[in-house]
């Protein structure tokens, strides 16, 4: 077994900064025993003399306009979940540990990624932006990897250790309660090596079974169970803004952030999404829904983002936005298209529908459609404006049909029982009687003829059998 531990010492701060480190002093505060304390401070705050553990009033006396964000344990857990989705690309054996650690068992992925070094490189390259500082440690047991990662926190690189290295480390890095660490110090035990030299059963009597269990896990005498990462059936993620956003265009960066999380999720599940919902939590405590529908399921950020960007131009914000939430719960299997070796210019499936999305966004959804056929004898009912790409052909009419159909039949004058369209028409062929539709309140009872104008233009006309009026219904271009 080979375990990798990703340790994020300032995860709560990362979540507040969201990948864009603030130039202003900023702290994450926590309330303990009714006192507001600084939990994490960003670089400008540290330079101003603020240290973690300081009370908020003291910190505010040091820096005039200090931004204080409350600490959210739930946010940390959600972030670890997101990182878990991301790490699912590398291994299915993932376990979040504590508040800011992610443990990955990677021994089964070594062959795929060409060994430890290459895998570590991939992990470092693909780690989502905005999670620095971090440390990545590889060791043979999960608890040892955790110890090394915590001991080398904010190293921002991959480190490899053997189990023997554990002996040299201070006992303060053990993942045990602080009281037990103090007890070990009072016993004169400084390093892990000294601790492991002691008989395990006597330690068990003094510190409890959980402690010896932990030591067994650390040294590999007991194997930790292999975790299995389960992706949730629905995708949901959100982003809180430090400063409220009042311009819709400013939402683009957070949208890209959320969609890249969605992309990782879709990649891990090997599925595509055709509709998702953005919820904007407004200052007025209302929620503005902004659903996005795509003409075809997509899974790549590079495909989805331009369309969302286009739709963003028409988004009107009712009030400044505090939080952006993304939710997707309908997924489709990934449609993988095989491309033609000899026709490289063949467009892929996605770009066809990107065009439709672009046209529909500007002109309106109803203005762009395909043509399909319905099994109906009434000429105006035997076609429909289909969803693009869904047009269905039926072997319905055996008679010749005009290329152009008038949306609404045009009434013609009649002269001596013949229709007149600019000039009197001559009937060439007919009648073709269509008498149907009595069951749905739009019955037709017509005799259709192909008529010819003086210049040779062929028209499709009918005589309504109920009132003997002539109508023009189509034009043959042929």
């Amino acid at each position, binding site marked *: 077994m080979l375990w990798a531990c990703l340790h994020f010492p300032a995860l709560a701060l990362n979540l507040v900064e969201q990948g864009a480190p603030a130039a202003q002093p900023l702290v994450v505060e926590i309330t303990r025993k009714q006192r507001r304390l600084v939990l994490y401070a960003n670089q400008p705050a540290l330079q101003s003399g603020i240290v973690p553990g300081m009370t908020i009033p003291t910190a505010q006396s040091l820096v005039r306009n200090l931004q204080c964000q409350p600490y959210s344990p739930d946010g940390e857990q959600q972030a670890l979940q997101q990182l878990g989705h991301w790490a699912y690309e590398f291994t299915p054996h993932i376990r979040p540990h504590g508040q800011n650690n992610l443990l990955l068992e990677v021994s089964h992925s070594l062959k795929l990624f060409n060994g430890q070094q290459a895998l570590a490189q991939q992990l470092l390259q693909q780690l989502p932006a905005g999670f620095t500082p971090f440390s990545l440690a590889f060791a043979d047991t999960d608890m040892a990897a955790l110890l090394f990662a915590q001991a080398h926190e904010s190293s921002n690189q991959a480190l490899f250790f053997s189990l023997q290295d554990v002996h040299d480390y201070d006992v303060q890095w053990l993942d045990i309660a602080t009281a037990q660490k103090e007890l070990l110090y009072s016993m004169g035990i400084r390093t892990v090596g000294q601790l492991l030299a002691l008989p395990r059963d006597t330690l068990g009597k003094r510190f409890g079974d959980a402690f010896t269990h932990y030591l067994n896990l650390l040294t590999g005498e007991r194997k930790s169970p292999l975790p299995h990462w389960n992706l949730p059936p629905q995708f949901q993620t959100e982003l809180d803004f430090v400063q409220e956003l009042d311009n819709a265009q400013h939402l683009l960066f957070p949208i890209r952030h959320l969609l890249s999380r969605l992309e990782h999720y879709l990649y891990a599940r090997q599925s595509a999404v055709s509709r998702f919902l953005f919820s904007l939590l407004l200052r007025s405590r209302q929620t503005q829904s902004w659903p996005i529908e795509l003409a075809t399921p997509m899974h790549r950020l590079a495909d989805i983002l331009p369309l969302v960007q286009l739709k963003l131009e028409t988004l009107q914000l009712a009030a400044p936005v505090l939080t952006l939430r993304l939710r997707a719960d309908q997924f489709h299997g990934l449609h993988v298209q095989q491309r033609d070796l000899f026709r490289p*210019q*063949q*467009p892929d499936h996605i*770009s*066809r529908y*990107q*065009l*439709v999305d*672009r*046209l529909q966004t*500007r*002109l309106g959804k109803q*203005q*762009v*459609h*395909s*043509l*399909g*056929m319905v099994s109906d004898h009434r000429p105006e009912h*035997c*076609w*429909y*404006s289909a969803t*693009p*790409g*869904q*047009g*269905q*052909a*039926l*072997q*319905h*009419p*055996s*008679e*010749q*049909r*005009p*290329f*152009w*159909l*008038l*949306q609404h039949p045009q009434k013609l004058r009649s002269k001596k029982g*013949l229709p007149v369209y600019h000039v009197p028409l*001559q*009937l*060439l*062929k*007919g*009648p073709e*009687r269509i008498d149907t539709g009595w069951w749905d309140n739009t019955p037709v009872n017509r005799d259709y*003829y192909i008529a*010819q104008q003086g*210049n*040779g*233009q062929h028209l499709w006309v009918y005589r309504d059998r109920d009132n003997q009026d002539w109508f023009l219904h*189509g*034009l043959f*271009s*042929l």
Partner: protein
Amino acid sequence: MSAAKPQLNTILHHPAIWRAADGMRSKQCRQQDFATVATGYHALDQVLPEGGLPVTGVTEILCPHWGCGEVELVSSALASLSQQARWLVWVNPPWMPYAPALMQQGIALENTLVVHSQQDKDTLWAMEQCLSSGACSAVQGWPRNPTPQHIRRLQLAAQKGNSLCLLMRPQAQMQQPSPAPLRLEMGPLQQELQVRVVKCRGHWGSPWLRLARPGHHSSTTLHGNAPAAAHKPAATLPTRPVGACATGFYSAPHSGG
């Protein structure tokens, strides 16, 4: 004396005479060879460069009125282009293309796309988007008043996306300059389609061509010999034309009365 007078044709076949049009025809002199799609009308294909409509670029069709046979002229080409897994787009057509007729002409309905726009600006925008995306095999558009700059943009977009742009314009705009590489003019519809090539690459234009409409003669003879026939439709049943295909005019036996 008359026997010594050389015929113009024989002079032209003399190897010492070089004609620019022949030069453009030979592969060496062309910048790039362009693929074409046959219109299905032999006489027209003969006069068009490379024997058909180019599948890339703007082809302008000038009509005296809509419905003068301009769709008939290109329907065979559209049917073969629609077999590609790309869109066949009508932008702002004067009437609705009728799905059963499209199917009868062999156009794949799942690749059709109809785009309606309120403003001329949107029509041109939609055409340009469709052409440049590379996801359309042909775009047939009816913009109201495109300027040469617009047509130039469409031409560039069509080259980028490797698409055919059929630009339908009224005949009244024929005198306006146009950067379209191929311009066809339709004459008023008579018993035959009338078309001439106004401008094309590497050739002079052509004189007026009269193209027989497929499967059409039976109706014209009928019309010619019996004006009274119109009053008795049942008696004027045209016979099925020989060799009528799916695009033939009266291909189905008739059972009215």
